[in-house]
């Protein structure tokens, strides 16, 4: 059925489509115009929506077409392009170039994104304890229920983007140029929102949320030559994001014991809210601003230096939170010898975020049972964004012979997370990278490359909540006053702070190899073969023994019998394996 639809669509489209190209020349000006008309029919009767994530079709014939116009000559160029697939899939482009004095470009594009997935898929509906001796299924007392307030809704977001760019030469004398950009992204549609109360009510509610996101960005900059060898530039960027969608609320259930339904007061004392309506989905209004100074300079006979310095802020206007960052980067290249170049790079950033104080109600406030302890959970949220980052690298490139180029690169990357996961004692990751590569090039017969890369990371990024807790429990047991009857399961939260926080599943050794071969064929065609692979493991703690590898052989043939025709066929296989005590790779593809 599906194939039949595809075949009919293809056949009829081939019969109906038409292309017309017109070219004309008049007093030094040339006009090229191409019009293409056709139509398409898409049936999704047999398709899953997932396959059609972006090709959202309609079950009817739809005309489609495109138009391209080029009018140029005497240093001027005007171009126009428009493409219509359906009313929500359209592209357009208008451009004007007046030599090197002015360049103007306005583009529009739209698409529909339909994720085609149900967030409630595979929900484990009820505790299951296996079978008893009589072979009967045994279920637990807790049950996860769900409620679909959005039955039958196909979620989709209609995205439109308008981008305008302007480049204006103010003075040819010093090559002073003004540049400006504006971009708007408008997203309208709906998405699936799933909410749940806490453990006392495993009740998931799925409902339709309105999407009405607005992103606007303005960029302006100026640059000019301050001497024969030095160019300076300044760039300002301002971006805002706002959601105009109505806030979604839900009723959060009355607290109670998840199995027998009692002990409401006790359970209510363990949560921040219950028996109330609250907003459950809110995107903050944010704005981002950046100032950037950049320079490029010729140094010596072959040297070139590019450098930039930036100051950026990002602000959440809903809760008055701000992040500030200072960035700097420098890149230098020079020819050390006629056949040897060096490329050196250095960059750094300092990011500081506001640290809000989180003032929440006490755990078990108002409860006075001796079996339970009232606890104040107020805290200052130190940001995981606070950090200093430094990257430096140097690469030597040597042409050993006409067809052989050798590369050797070393790099060091440092990330000092100021307050993550512990205030004033963050993880300081250091990554050393070395890479060697050979590229050979026999233009008329073949070309290819071989690469090896090794990365060694000391103290890689970890989850602040850790992944293991068995020994932590022993630590916890020592914190409980002797003789007290304490319900230990209340204290699962405390284990978070007692876990081993120097354990990670991030690799601290990574080996990467890559080999490529390409054989040119007639008519700009090629046959490409490649083999890439990596192996990585974690050796910070031997008992973890986290390791994974992947190999990707790839073969591809490209044929271009004429400029209008391209034929390509390829085969890629991904083979990989991950191993870890916890990270069972059930679905890694």
């Amino acid at each position, binding site marked *: 059925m599906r194939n039949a639809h595809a075949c009919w669509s293809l056949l009829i489209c081939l019969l109906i489509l038409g292309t017309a190209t017109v070219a004309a020349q008049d007093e030094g000006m040339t006009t090229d115009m191409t019009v293409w008309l056709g139509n398409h029919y898409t049936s999704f009767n047999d398709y899953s929506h997932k396959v059609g*994530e972006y090709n959202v079709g309609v079950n009817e014939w739809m005309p489609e077409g495109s138009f*391209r116009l*080029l009018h*140029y000559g005497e*240093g001027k160029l005007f171009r126009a392009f428009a493409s219509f697939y359906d009313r929500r899939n359209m592209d357009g482009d208008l451009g004007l170039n007046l030599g090197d004095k002015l360049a103007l470009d306005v583009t529009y*594009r739209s*698409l529909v994104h339909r*994720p085609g*997935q149900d*967030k409630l898929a*595979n*929900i*484990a509906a009820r*505790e299951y*304890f*296996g079978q008893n001796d009589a072979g009967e299924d045994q279920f637990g007392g807790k049950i996860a229920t769900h409620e679909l307030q959005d039955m039958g809704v196909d979620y989709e977001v209609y995205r439109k983007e308008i981008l305008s760019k302007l480049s204006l030469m103010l003075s*040819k004398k010093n090559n002073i*140029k003004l540049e400006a950009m504006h971009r708007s992204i408008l997203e309208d549609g709906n998405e699936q*929102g799933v*909410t*749940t*109360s*806490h453990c006392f009510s495993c009740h998931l509610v799925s409902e339709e949320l309105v999407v009405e996101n607005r992103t606007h*960005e303005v960029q302006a900059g100026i640059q000019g030559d301050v001497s024969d060898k030095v160019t300076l530039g300044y760039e300002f960027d301002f*971006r805002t*994001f706002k959601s105009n969608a109505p806030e979604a609320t839900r009723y959060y259930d009355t607290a109670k014991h998840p199995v027998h339904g009692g002990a409401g007061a006790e359970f209510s004392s363990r*949560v*921040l*809210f219950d028996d109330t309506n609250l907003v459950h989905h809110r995107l903050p209004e*944010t704005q*981002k601003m950046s100032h950037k100074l950049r320079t490029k300079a010729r140094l010596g006979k072959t040297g070139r230096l590019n450098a930039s310095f930036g100051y950026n802020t990002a602000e*959440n206007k809903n809760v008055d*939170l701000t992040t500030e960052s200072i960035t700097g980067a420098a*890149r230098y290249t020079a020819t050390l010898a006629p056949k040897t170049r060096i490329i050196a790079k250095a960059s750094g950033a300092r990011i500081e975020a*506001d640290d*809000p104080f989180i003032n929440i109600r006490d755990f078990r406030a108002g409860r006075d049972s001796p079996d339970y302890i009232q606890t104040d959970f107020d*805290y200052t949220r130190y*940001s*995981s*964004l606070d950090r200093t980052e430094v990257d430096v690298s140097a690469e030597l490139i040597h*042409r050993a012979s006409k067809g052989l180029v050798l590369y050797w690169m070393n790099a060091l990357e440092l990330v000092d997370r100021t307050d993550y996961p512990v205030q004033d004692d963050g993880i300081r990751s250091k990554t050393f990278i070395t890479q060697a590569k050979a*590229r050979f*090039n026999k233009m008329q017969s073949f070309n290819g490359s071989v690469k090896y890369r090794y990365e060694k990371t000391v103290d890689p*990024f970890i989850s602040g909540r*850790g*992944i*293991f*807790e068995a020994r932590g*429990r022993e630590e916890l047991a020592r914190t409980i006053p002797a003789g007290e009857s304490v319900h230990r399961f209340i204290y699962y939260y405390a284990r978070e702070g007692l876990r081993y926080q120097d354990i990670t*599943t991030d690799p601290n050794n990574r080996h990467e190899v890559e080999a490529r071969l*390409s054989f040119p064929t007639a008519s700009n065609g090629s046959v*490409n073969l490649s083999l890439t692979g990596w192996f990585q493991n974690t050796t910070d703690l031997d008992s973890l023994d986290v390791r994974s590898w992947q190999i990707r052989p*790839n073969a591809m043939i490209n044929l271009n019998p004429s400029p209008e025709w*391209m034929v390509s066929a390829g085969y*890629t296989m991904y083979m990989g394996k991950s191993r870890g*005590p916890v*990270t*069972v790779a*059930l679905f890694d*593809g």
Partner: protein
Amino acid sequence: MSSSSRGSNRLILLSIGLLTVAVAAIGLISSPAVAGTVDNETCLACHDDVGENYAMTPHGIYFQQRPALRDYGCESCHGSGGRHIEDPTPDNILNPANSDQFGSSILCTQCHNTEQFDEWEFSAHHNADINCASCHTSHAKVGHTMKKPTPELCYDCHSAVKAEMNLPSHHPVREGEMSCSDCHNPHGGSVSLTMDDSGRELCFSCHAEKEGPFVYEHAPVSEDCGYCHTPHGSVANNLLTQNEPTLCLNCHSMHFHATVVSVDGEFEVPQAPERASRSTEDGWKRVMLTKCTQCHGAVHGSDLPSQATSTGGNALTR
């Protein structure tokens, strides 16, 4: 030489000068000896395939506006052609298309030196000896100077990326709604040719709603989107590197109601004997088939506290 030609003529002469220097430099590196000059007409007498469109190529239009270059446009890029006329073999003429990074792009960037090429010499393409002619054809008409449209042009070399783009979850490149150049700058970008060196900044330029800052953070979002997402394509939904909950379990322990495993991978008797039945293989199955984001939906961060006091409101459930 330039005393009487200021203004626009000065730019032309500067261009000629730079071209001359460039041609001379490249000639020293890899071209045959300079021997006499020939005009366009002589070149096009044999290379009629080039001559057919020459006047409508960007170079042809540019040179026609410059009297000094009008008749010798070919030599601007190919060097002096005298020796090639005497012995018309490819070895006797400079062909920028066949040069490596020590040659061709030095020539092209003499004229193509606007800010979009600022990072060219530091770029991954340049380092990989991809020269201008690898992607561009300088003898084609205006509007047709790419050898192929993208993404097919990019896929010629990046065939593994093409394969990734065919996985179920992907950015809409194969549908024509995005192009490689939306994220990558083929003329610059020191890390994977991306428009911005930071993965976060690049992603947030379109997905601004995920940047924050938020009251309740998810630490990997502060690090790199690549911790959870792979940009070109994946088997898992939403460009995740793995499906849930496997991805989440890379860093988080299983939910406390599910089951707990010890450091060495053995199942343990839970701390509370009355709940021993929970720590079973069935508990594993349950936790492995439930998506974490069914409850913890605000994985990119939130300003709204979650319900449990014990987590400090930081469970990202709303």
